[in-house]
């Protein structure tokens, strides 16, 4: 349907084809987006709670969580606002390791909760088998508060609104419950390569 825009030639980068999802452009910066003020969280007060339905089944303090097995992941991230960033490096604890440590087999859906009241929903299949982690460092350093530190969810194969900043809770559920942006018109799954940005995509 797209007709050409008179006079526009663009500045596409060669070699990105296949690596860049449709409609995205590569940025060298790292844009910050949030719904409200940045929470300032002290690690001394930080906890991560794992819930099954309404029931907490495990909780970690910062020290205990940092003692869990670590994984490093390096790759591309894609924001629904159309920027993509290549070769980002993160280190943290996979959701698999978290579930192992808690000794539970999870329900099929997840609702991740953040310190500022934000939430996002995921299928459990999108966060297991090494696909997601709770990240504790970015580029070899503690994650800056603006980018979700001290700990954020990282689910890089989906649009980055699913990588909830300031994550404080992972709640597994038997039925899908939509999170903050999903309730406001964004796609329930958010696959950048299928360009699943909005709920009517």
């Amino acid at each position, binding site marked *: *349907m*797209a*007709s*050409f*825009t*008179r*006079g*526009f*030639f*663009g*500045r*596409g980068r060669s070699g990105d084809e296949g690596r860049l999802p449709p*409609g995205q*452009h590569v*940025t060298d*910066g*790292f*844009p*910050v*987006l*949030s*719904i*409200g*003020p*940045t*929470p300032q969280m002290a690690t001394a007060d930080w906890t991560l709670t794992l819930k099954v339905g309404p029931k907490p089944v495990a909780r970690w303090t910062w020290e205990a969580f940092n003692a869990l097995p670590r994984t490093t992941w390096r790759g591309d991230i894609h924001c629904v*606002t*159309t*920027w993509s960033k290549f070769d980002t490096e993160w280190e943290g604890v996979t959701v698999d390791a978290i579930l192992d440590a808690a000794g539970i087999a999870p329900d099929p859906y997840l609702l991740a909760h953040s310190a*500022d*009241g934000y939430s996002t929903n995921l299928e459990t299949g999108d966060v297991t088998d090494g696909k997601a982690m709770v990240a504790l460092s970015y580029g070899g350093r503690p994650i*800056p508060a*603006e*980018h979700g530190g001290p700990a954020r969810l990282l689910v890089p194969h989906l649009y980055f609104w699913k990588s909830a900043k300031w994550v404080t809770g992972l709640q597994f559920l038997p039925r899908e419950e939509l999170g*903050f*942006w999903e*309730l*406001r*018109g964004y796609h329930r799954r958010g696959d950048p390569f299928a360009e699943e940005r*909005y*709920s*009517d995509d």
Partner: protein
Amino acid sequence: MIEAPARTIWRAATVSALASLTPRIRGITLDVPGWPGHRAGQHVTVRLTAPDGYQALRDYSIATADDGRPRLGLAVDLLPDGEVSTFLHEGLAPGDTLEIRGPLGGHFVWTPEDGGPVLLIGGGSGVVPLMAMLRTRGLKAPETRMALLLAARTWGDIAFRDELLARDAVRACVTFATSREPARRREDVSGRIGPEALSRALDCLGQPPRHAYICGATGFVETAAALALAAGIPAAAIRTERYGGA
């Protein structure tokens, strides 16, 4: 209030007018047949297509209130080396067609039903969605108390300045903070925004705000949000929209 948006298909938008709002900000008026209407604070995605099929997409906040007409105003900041903003500033002419999708955005939104008082804090082109809120208030709920604190480098960099001065004269409180110039009006401050600038806006508002909207570059938003929290505005009442990144 949570609402799912109107169906977001791509629509052809024709440029009906262009204006230089400041040396770096260009106002673009678009006629959009079939436009479903929008709320103040929402944005559109603009899609440009080059002859070889390459496409660029960027989001721009809507500056205008929904007055029932299929017409929108955008205001685009010219970014150094900006692929899309350079084209919109230099290559676009009246009669040209763009593709747009929207309205988008379900959180950084103000409707008359949300009520007030409302505090608006903008940095540079961050004023754009706040203008939609002021204009909506003027059109549909003029009794709502609303205050705008707008930061810009100089008096000449204040977008929509004449309209804001006129609105200030009719009980919307407008405070300008010019970082590189002395203040020109008694109401204004010079330098970057700080507690003094915010307290002027809050004093004019007269009551604690029920809603606060902060928009601009992320560094500006961080500073403004910290000031708002320090002034006692609850975090849950503050909504932020950030342009660009750290």
